[in-house]
């Protein structure tokens, strides 16, 4: 059985908050001429998707470290292919930090 509807909505709300926050950071940091509702969560960040390049990738890494407190290595950056994959990384980083504190 899947989780309860209440739990599903809670998972969704948490994910939405983080996703919306990351999209706003992305738009501000990279001066994208886009609104958050014009970026699908699985849109490709690079190439023909949002058209970001390697310089933008570095900026994303800095933004993640500064805004979300997650350290980013060169290897980590390979998984930054879409908003969702970046949010996965942020969530895992924040969870790991919370477990360290405990």
């Amino acid at each position: 059985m899947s989780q309860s509807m209440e739990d599903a909505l809670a998972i969704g709300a948490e994910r939405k908050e983080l996703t919306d926050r990351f999209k706003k950071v992305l738009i501000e940091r990279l001066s994208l001429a886009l609104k958050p509702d014009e970026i699908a969560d699985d849109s490709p960040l690079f190439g023909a998707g949002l058209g970001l390049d390697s310089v933008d990738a570095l900026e994303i890494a800095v933004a993640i470290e500064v805004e979300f407190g997650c350290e980013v290595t060169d290897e980590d950056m390979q998984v930054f292919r879409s908003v969702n994959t970046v949010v996965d990384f942020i969530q895992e980083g924040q969870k790991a930090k919370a477990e360290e504190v405990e």
Partner: protein
Amino acid sequence: MENSYEVSRQAVACFEVAGGMGLKVSGDGAEAWLNGLFTKDIEMLPPFKGAIGLFVEDNGDLIAVSTIFRDEDDSFFVFADQEELSGVLKAQVTNGVYVSDIADTHRVLGILGPKAQDMMSDCAGEDILGIPYMSFEKSEDQGYVIFRQGFTGEFEFRILIENGEFAATHAELLAAAVALGGGAIETEVLDLLCLEMRSIKDDDILGQANPLEAGLHWMVEFSKENYRGKAALDGFKMDQTRKSLIVKIADPLIAQAGDTLEIEGKNVGVIARVIHSPTLKCDVAFAYLDTPTGWVGVDYDVASANGSTLAKAVSSPLFVTQTVLDA
């Protein structure tokens, strides 16, 4: 199919691109005409560059996903998987616009895989290394046109070859692929390769969803002033009650297209297509989900005629390809 997958993800595949459509659009009115129909702005597109966008109806229904490239003489190549697009466009041709079928004079070879760039560099010269994604080059020595494009996450090229030269060129490129450990493939594998990278088919959308529910926001230039279907797409953007995600299925061979996704017995989504991913070693599906519960990390019960199982919404693309790892 397994061998075709391995060749495509580990070496280099060589195949004829069958089906779909290709048009050459020319004339003084070509740019304005296409720009009024396409969701991306092609006015600023430089020669030898391309854009991926949509042709939609006035009500926002998808006609076809398409790639348009500008040629050096300001004519345009228009490619799409939906053959119907050809008839739709030809029916709307206006003065100063000329449309011809590329298939009348040319056939297309596809080359894809992590070794595709090396192979094409050996065959067509080192200049191939400088072709950016969504660009093309005319190989004077080889007599064909090389487009760098694709949706599988690997290096991918489409080679436009004059009909008379096709057989010889195919043989040459296939031999080059074999020499690098690759070869011919069953083209049915292409849908699987694409969906692993969340690149969907037109059929995943047609009759089921609007383009934004399908997640094709990046194929729309929302700031573009006018194009057919703009008002509808802007409306969909404001009022999105459904979205799409990839879900991983817990048990193989159970889920199928049309199965509902439920939470506590409530219908919250539907599966559009299921594939088996050899890399992930599980079934994955492209699904439409109600927005409140359509988020990565949520689990769903799959109601299938084949039994019951669980599905979990995951991020895509599903993994980092060999092409990206090697880069």
